[in-house]
């Protein structure tokens, strides 16, 4: 075990996989010589050299196209898209090419590739550098989509993603980069598609993702201590595959579901989960399914405004108390 930051866990995972598999290569803007603009990839160029760790021009279509072409011919590329907002300039390669080509070719292709990206708000970067876009990916059949909330999962899920035979979009929450945790040394693989139950309680199930996980945990503590409400908190972690088994089990037991999303309101994973439960667990429900989300707005830059709109413990507590009343 070592105390690693979420940021450091990124490089740790990539290094671990590059050591065990020659076919793993890594490309992106400023990821090599500079070690990444979020300082997530320091040391990799030094250890693995220019052949495997490569800086690119500002050409996101070329970056992902190159990764796709490499993946279909035997490599296991990891590509960095610096901010997830920039998926919009290369979405065709992801959504139309990578995601569909296995299917269209009747399984002739596999795309064992990972696209990492800094996602989410909290840094006062404004509307074009703060989006939570894991939902864009979840909407597209053929992709796997994960978004860890802690350093150990960053390492374990990134290793799993690199080994996975499918294209994985790996969303790193930029406001979590500084958070630290004990992380197992050496081999540490967290299988994709397993949610983590972080806390158990019989009154309500709170499902959260990425930066919303610590906020949901804080809310759960407050609910317990101030309202006598016992919440189960589930870190969804993996949107595709989605661990409906774990989540449904909990909702069946508590009869109540609250989802906590950072993304804007419409068509998020919370809506998907809510509609799944409304269809499959309807008779187990004891009350409405409540989504706590950022409102359906672009994100403002000013610190007080950004804090205003993002879901925090207070809004979660309010939603839950209303529900259990």
């Amino acid at each position, binding site marked *: 075990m070592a105390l690693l930051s979420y940021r450091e866990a990124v490089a740790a995972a990539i290094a671990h996989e590059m050591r065990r598999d020659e076919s793993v290569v890594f490309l992106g803007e400023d990821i090599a010589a500079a070690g990444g603009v979020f300082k997530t990839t320091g040391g990799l160029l030094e250890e693995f050299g220019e052949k495997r760790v490569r800086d690119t021009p500002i050409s996101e*279509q*070329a970056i992902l196209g190159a990764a796709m072409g490499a993946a279909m*011919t035997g490599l296991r590329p990891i590509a960095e898209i610096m901010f997830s907002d920039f998926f919009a300039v290369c979405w065709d390669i992801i959504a139309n*090419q990578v995601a569909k080509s296995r299917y269209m070719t009747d399984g002739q292709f596999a795309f064992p590739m990972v696209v990492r990206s800094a996602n989410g708000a909290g840094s006062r970067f404004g509307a074009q550098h703060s989006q939570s876009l894991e939902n864009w990916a979840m909407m597209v059949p053929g992709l796997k989509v994960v978004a860890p909330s802690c350093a150990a999962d960053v390492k374990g899920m990134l290793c799993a993603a690199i080994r996975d035979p499918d294209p994985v979009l790996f969303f790193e929450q930029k406001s979590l980069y500084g958070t630290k945790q004990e992380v197992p040394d050496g081999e540490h693989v967290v299988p994709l598609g397993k949610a983590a139950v972080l806390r158990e309680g019989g009154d309500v199930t709170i499902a959260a993702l990425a930066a919303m996980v610590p906020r949901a945990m804080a809310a759960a503590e407050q609910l317990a201590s101030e309202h006598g409400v016992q919440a189960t908190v589930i870190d969804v972690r993996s949107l595709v595959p989605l661990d409906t088994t774990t989540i449904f089990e909990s909702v069946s037991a508590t009869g109540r579901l609250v989802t906590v999303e950072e993304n804007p309101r419409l068509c998020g994973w919370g809506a998907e989960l809510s509609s799944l439960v409304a269809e499959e667990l309807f008779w187990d429900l004891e009350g409405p399914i409540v989504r706590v989300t950022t409102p359906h707005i672009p994100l403002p830059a000013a610190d007080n405004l950004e804090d205003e709109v993002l879901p925090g413990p207070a809004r979660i507590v309010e939603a839950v108390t209303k529900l259990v009343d």
Partner: protein
Amino acid sequence: MTDQQINSETRLRLYRLMRECRELEQRAYDLFMQNLVKGTSHLGLGQEAVAAGFGAAMNADDYTFCTYRGHNHTLVRGVAMDAILGELMGRECGLMRGKGGSMHLTSVEHGVMGSYAIIGAHLPVAAGAAWSAQYRGTQQVAVCFFGDGTTNIGAFHEALNFAVIWNLPVIFVCENNKYMEYTPIEAVTAVANPAADRASAYSLDPILIDGNDVELVYRTASEAIARARAGKGPSLIEAQTYRHGGHSRADPGKYRPDEEVAAWKARDPLDAHRAKLVEAGVDEETIDLIDAQVMSAIDEATETAKASPPPPREIAYIDVWADGGVEWRC
């Protein structure tokens, strides 16, 4: 490489490849008229010399990347005719059992690394395959075909720059057939030769050739491939050609002046090459025999495809992910 260096076997092979392309697409057209091809299809009738010249110059393990107008480029790599027709017709014997359709012919086994239907997308992908070959040290090259209209989309620019700075073994082949769909290319392009006039923007030599001269295409291809294999990096080749028919299945191509069409049909790459062969002493029967062989192969493939059933419905639900399934939940 001079004229002499192309041996007679290769010359006949070039003819045969072109003839196969021509007749297979002609058959595809007929099948479409019989309503046996359900979706869209984009024929390269008239443009066969480009596919054939490159196909003949490539090694078996090289990579082809092509577009929706990719039947020819797929066929010249050795893919079976019944698999191609079957795919167009949505039959079980299709190359991808009907899951892809005419615009997405793919045969990894033959190095046909996909046909791409969104303009420009495959240029960076081809660069990526070339990067992989370079990384693995396999001497493979990637050849990427696209049209004149494609030179105006962003991905073209990104891929070219990328391929040059990484010195990748990839050859970008622009088939300039003068039209992006129904629009004359010169109406929407800032330079006269959409690819060649942009080569210098990537420190590449401009290469502009007659794409209807199959031997010239073959020589140009061979040189570019040799360069790439020798680690000397990418090439951008503009081959001027023309499609005899419309852009896609339903298009009669009426936006083109009659004289223009006639002039290009007079420069049919098959007729020209046949004349050259005869001039070089190949007897007409040899050529006629090739024609006959091709026709009978196509007839046979047609029957096979027609006899093939529709794909089983279960395959609609597999291969979304690598586990063979469609399940996104645990």
